[in-house]
């Protein structure tokens, strides 16, 4: 006999599924979701490491609970989906950053060929995805004379400031604060 409409809610009640081993199925589903979470977490960790120092990637997934406990199916799904979203966003951020770095490398190439077409343009190593503090700066030869004559060149900076020099700057700033220097 077909169930009547009024009988449907009874059919859908959770306790009526106990004879069908629904609890076992749910546990399997939870285990499957936990496996997916572990795989996604590894992927996100890799993207975070790749992006560090180049761009900021969204990697935070809000806590599903205030205290440690066994999460239910819905909560695990929410964690899994949030991790998948973060991975997609992180991938997008990395692709976008890669595009910017490629454009900057192309700009640098053109700038090195024709510095006067890129007056005062400065490209740092970070802009092209390289480590370190160097920069390429399009500047005139001999200051104002070069500007008037159209003599432009790309000057490569000498890299990161030395620790001793930074310390000297800090000491000078402290001395100024203390009123020892004008």
């Amino acid at each position, binding site marked *: 006999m077909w169930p009547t409409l009024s009988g449907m809610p009874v059919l859908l009640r959770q306790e009526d599924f106990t004879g069908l081993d629904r609890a076992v199925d749910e546990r399997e589903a939870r285990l499957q979701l936990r496996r997916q*979470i*572990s795989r996604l*977490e590894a992927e996100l960790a890799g993207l975070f*490491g790749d992006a*560090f120092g180049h761009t900021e990637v969204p990697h935070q*997934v809000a806590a599903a609970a205030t*205290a*440690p406990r*066994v*999460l239910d199916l819905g909560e695990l799904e929410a964690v899994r989906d949030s991790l998948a979203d973060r991975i997609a966003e992180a991938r997008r951020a990395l692709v976008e950053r890669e595009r910017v770095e490629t454009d900057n490398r192309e700009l640098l190439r053109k700038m090195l060929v024709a510095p006067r077409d890129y007056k005062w343009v400065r490209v740092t190593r970070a802009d092209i995805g390289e480590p370190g503090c160097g920069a390429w700066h399009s500047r005139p030869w001999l200051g104002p004379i070069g500007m008037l004559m159209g003599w432009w060149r790309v000057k490569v900076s000498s890299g990161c400031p030395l620790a001793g020099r930074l310390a000297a700057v800090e000491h000078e700033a402290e001395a100024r604060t203390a009123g020892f220097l004008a």
Partner: protein
Amino acid sequence: MSGVAAEQRMGWDPAPRQGWVAPHIVSEFPGLGIAWVEVDAKPGRSPEPVRRRLRDLSDRTYGSQAIRLRERPIPWAYRVFFRQIGLDPDRTRTPVEQLALDRLHDGGFRSKGLPADALDIAIVETGVALRAFDADSIVGSLCIRDSAPGEGLAGQEPEMAQGTLTIADEMRPVGLLFGPTAEGYGVHHGSRRIAVAAIQVKGVPQIAVEEALWMAAATLEAA
């Protein structure tokens, strides 16, 4: 593990004790476990060899390693477990990541005295999550179980939400799993025996757990 360390570990007495995990919890989290050792040791200032070891560890730990830490198998396993129990490992840090972050923030591993320094050395070297308790306060064996209705954490929470994962002895919870320790169970000035407990999750090999416990216990015993 070095050959000398392996030889010393083979003759290690007492061997670590394996705790109990509630069956319905372990069926959800296969590989979850707790093991601990009890050591005759008093809390106090760390001796020079321990502080020197912390300095050596600081010199061996770099920012780039801290960034890539989450990709290494054991720290990753703890991050995954944190996600699975509802914690955000970027907010509630796993023990090894917290130490790496502190190292970057403070410029070195700061000595916090014993037993904290012994635990820090073992955690940084192995990545395994360790906790210290006052061994004389623990009744029977340690276990991992969920909280019962109306159960609280002494000095921390009068009543925990039912199902909260805890480390417990045979009487009551002694601390939240990866959370605060209940009042009266932490190591205090009067402690004369210290229980060092390792929490194992799926993906953390047994050998790493044993080495972490051995390392922490040996540091405490030598002090």
